[in-house]
């Protein structure tokens, strides 16, 4: 078995006892990427030089202060390409950012580096994180390591596939409507969407600023906790990052679920949730009950409007956030353009893919004078109702348990022609973004040979209770050692 199939804490032990060096781990990761990734397509680029430099620094740190070095010291990681990396091309999966080499690191990237993590590359994603299958990347379609005819989920598909295929021990993704949790579920890995403001967005190329959060994707819940603890917390560069202390998240992992009240939202089991997914959820709930949790049905009545509200608010922010890609600094317009408008139009038409263009058009429309009240303002009211639903339910229960997605991974190309079907993939994940809540997808079983995740939602800044429940689900299903076929050599 590859060393990259081990948990971060186990690797940490071996790094500290000098059984393995950070340099060896980095080389193994790079070697595996070279051998396995051509078939998976998770990486847009590898960062050999950076990885070697960081690995050598990590080895020095581990040698000088084995106990003081942080848990992530020497661990091979990779970042979704929406995160700015100083000196390393960052494209957000878009043609228009081809060649963009940021002069600065995203706060999360800097924090991972400060924790001694070793970056082996940048990961594919849907263009500007807009999509649920990774098929909207301008560069390549990542496939699901469990079945190469299927999508890995999106938009952090590269991040999920890289962990599943053991090409990195932990990756960072971003979640605007489910973009961490959905691919985590499809690829059989753990994915955490922190509460809005728990993690800095500075250096995250914005999709929808009021919904975006950066979070980890890993093999185990504990691994995710280690990464989350490294990146979470206030940031003077991000005014929307909360100054509330992060607290000791590790303590939550071993508390069990005895005495917890867990809600299962009725609306999240409605039509569209496949039988296989339902079965995995039911089994997980039964196990949690056996462990002493109390399972109750709850209702989130605004759920049915959440998707519509999301697809007004998110595109509205997109239309503004992507305005800076105008052919002046980013993208190249038609050289023969005879007017400013023509130059803008050609640069943006050439630079953006169809889904991004669709959302820009949608967002521009809903913010236009005369339509603002009917769409944007109304959607904000629905957003408030969705948040109130959750607030009410969290007075009755400690956390919510639901499917992460209605189905397991679908076939490549299956939903490309039908944007609405694609959007529906996120129906169970995006309400948590609208409300700013904490959420985790944790592997809980298989349906027809494909991984299926369970989603745990907690209140605002309820990362600890999410980790606690997810750790229990993980312990009870005991799946994380299983690697996709052909990736454990």
């Amino acid at each position: 078995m590859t060393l990259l199939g081990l948990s971060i804490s186990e690797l940490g032990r071996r790094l500290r006892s000098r059984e393995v060096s950070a340099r060896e781990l980095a080389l193994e990761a790079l070697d595996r990427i070279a051998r396995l990734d051509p078939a998976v397509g998770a990486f847009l680029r590898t960062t050999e030089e950076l990885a070697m430099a960081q690995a050598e620094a990590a080895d020095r740190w581990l040698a000088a202060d084995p106990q003081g070095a942080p848990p992530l010291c020497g661990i091979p990681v990779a970042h979704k390409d929406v995160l700015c990396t100083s000196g390393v091309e960052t494209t957000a999966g878009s043609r228009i950012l081809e060649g963009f080499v940021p002069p600065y690191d995203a706060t999360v990237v800097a924090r991972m580096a400060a924790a001694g993590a070793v970056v082996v590359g940048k990961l594919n994603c849907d263009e500007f994180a807009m999509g649920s299958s990774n098929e909207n990347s301008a560069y390549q379609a990542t496939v699901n390591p469990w079945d190469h005819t299927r999508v890995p989920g999106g938009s952090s598909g590269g991040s999920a596939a890289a962990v599943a295929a053991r090409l990195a021990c932990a990756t960072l993704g971003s979640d605007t409507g489910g973009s961490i949790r959905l691919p985590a579920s499809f690829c059989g890995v753990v994915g955490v969407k922190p509460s809005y403001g728990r993690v800095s967005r500075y250096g995250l190329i914005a999709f929808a600023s009021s919904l975006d959060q950066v979070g980890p994707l890993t093999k185990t819940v504990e691994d995710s906790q280690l990464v989350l603890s490294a990146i979470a917390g206030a940031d003077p560069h991000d005014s929307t990052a909360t100054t509330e202390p992060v607290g000791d998240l590790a303590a939550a992992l071993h508390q069990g679920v005895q005495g917890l009240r867990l809600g299962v939202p009725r609306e999240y089991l409605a039509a569209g949730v496949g039988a296989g997914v339902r079965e995995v959820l039911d089994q997980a709930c039964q196990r949690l009950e056996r462990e002493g949790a109390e399972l109750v049905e709850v209702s989130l009545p605004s759920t049915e409007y959440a998707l519509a509200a999301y697809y007004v608010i998110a595109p509205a922010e997109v239309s503004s956030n992507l305005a800076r890609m105008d052919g002046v600094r980013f993208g190249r317009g038609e050289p023969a353009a005879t007017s400013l408008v023509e130059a803008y139009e050609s640069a943006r038409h050439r630079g953006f893919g169809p889904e991004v263009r669709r959302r820009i058009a949608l967002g521009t429309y809903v913010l236009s004078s005369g339509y603002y009240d009917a769409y944007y303002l109304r959607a904000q009211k629905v957003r408030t109702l969705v948040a109130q639903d959750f607030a009410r339910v969290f007075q009755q229960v400690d956390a919510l348990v639901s499917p992460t997605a209605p189905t397991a991974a679908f076939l490549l190309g299956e939903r490309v022609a039908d944007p609405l079907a694609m959007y529906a993939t996120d129906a169970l994940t995006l309400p948590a973004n609208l409300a700013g809540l904490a959420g985790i997808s944790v592997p809980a079983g298989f349906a027809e040979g494909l991984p299926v995740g369970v989603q745990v939602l907690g209140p605002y800044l309820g990362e600890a209770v999410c980790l606690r429940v997810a750790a229990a689900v993980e312990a009870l299903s005991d799946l994380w050692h299983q690697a996709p076929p052909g990736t454990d050599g």
Partner: protein
Amino acid sequence: MAELEPVIGLEVHAQLLTKSKMFCGCRAEYLGLPPNSNTCPTCLGLPGALPVINRAAVEMTIRTALALACRIPEFSKFDRKNYFYPDLPKGYQISQFDLPLSLAGQLEFEVDGQRRACGITRVHLEEDAGTLHHAGEIHTSNFSLVDLNRAGVPLMEVVGEPDLRSPREAPQYLRALRQLLIYLGVNDGNMEQGSLRCDANVSLRPRGQREMGVKVEVKNMNSFRSLEAALTYEVGRQTDLIQRGMTIVQETRGWSELEQATVSQRGKEEAQDYRYFPEPDLPPLKVGRELVEQLKAGLPEPPMRLRDRLLDQYEISAEQVLVLTERPQDAAYFEAVVAAGAPPRAAANWQAGPLQALCKAARVEVERCSISAGELADLVRMVEAGEVSGSTARELLAEAFESGASPAALVTERGLAQVSDAAQMDAWVDDALRQLPKAAADFQAGAERALGPLVGAIRKASGNRANPDLAARLLRERLARPGE
């Protein structure tokens, strides 16, 4: 047809004198730097960069709003104003739409000695754009160069109510506002360099009618003179159109200094839909009552009230008051000179006259020049007491201004104190009469102007130290006595 009444409202943009930009740590001072050197990921609008509100800019805006008697709501927020232009790197300007930092105030100003008040709709905060550079004119240049050194500089907008009723009032309103901003230390008042900019909305209506006519926005006026000229032109243009039975088109027009006319820039159809929405990168701003009270307590005496007080308290003319209240530092200097013992009128004359001329030539503010208020007071007192002549005092002031010495000390040091000693004066008078017997004879024969050369001779003999008034008096006494 009823007489037409102009209705004018001004929108004034003022760059704030903060250390750093509105949303990042770059310097707010951007002039004279190499292009794009005063930038960072945030003001370049690089993907992923985020804004952080500059507290000093918020405080300066609130202070301005308080000085304009505005209401400061407890909650305020920033919004995005979306439009495409190459000097706007993010494709939107962070501004304030429906919840500005302040609302509903007023500004007092003077027109032809009459006090007027103009309503202030709001004072809000936003960020400046970059600048574009072309070879020659924008329309003929085949390239545009973008410089983002100015991008993100804090810009405060003071929106005035349409309360002005003639083009003459507009520059007076603007002068009063400019002076207030300078008093508050929030803006340098430089219209030429564009740190203070003014747009105007102009419409006409029959006098007595309440509803407004069709509004034209006039831009590109960068001096008081061009503001008045542009408004005079625009009012004339609209009057002419209405009198010819034509309708006014709602549009944006620019003032052309070259043509001395306003020129259509953009019609209503081309008006931008800015698609304002709340800036998701910034949490709403909560302005505590305590902060407001603290800022209110720290406000300087407003210029209008300061002028009233100086006029009231010291025996100086209205013209002198105007000069001495140009800046609050001028008034403070004046009051310090008076407090150090100089008579107010003389102090005002010396400060507004010789000292200000020296300061202007040296491009230094009076409070920063080498002559302290106490030193000026000493000199003024000596002149007033006849201890030193006015011309000598002026020369010494200039010299001390350069060298940093005390002018009063120079008087003593050089033995330049005016001589009024009787025996010495008599001796000089004797000499003069001996030297210029013809002048003496002419004076006695009734030629008044013959006294001049005699006084001159006394001054010359004394090395300019003889008190000229005393010399003249002694000569008259002597020459009125026949037989001598």
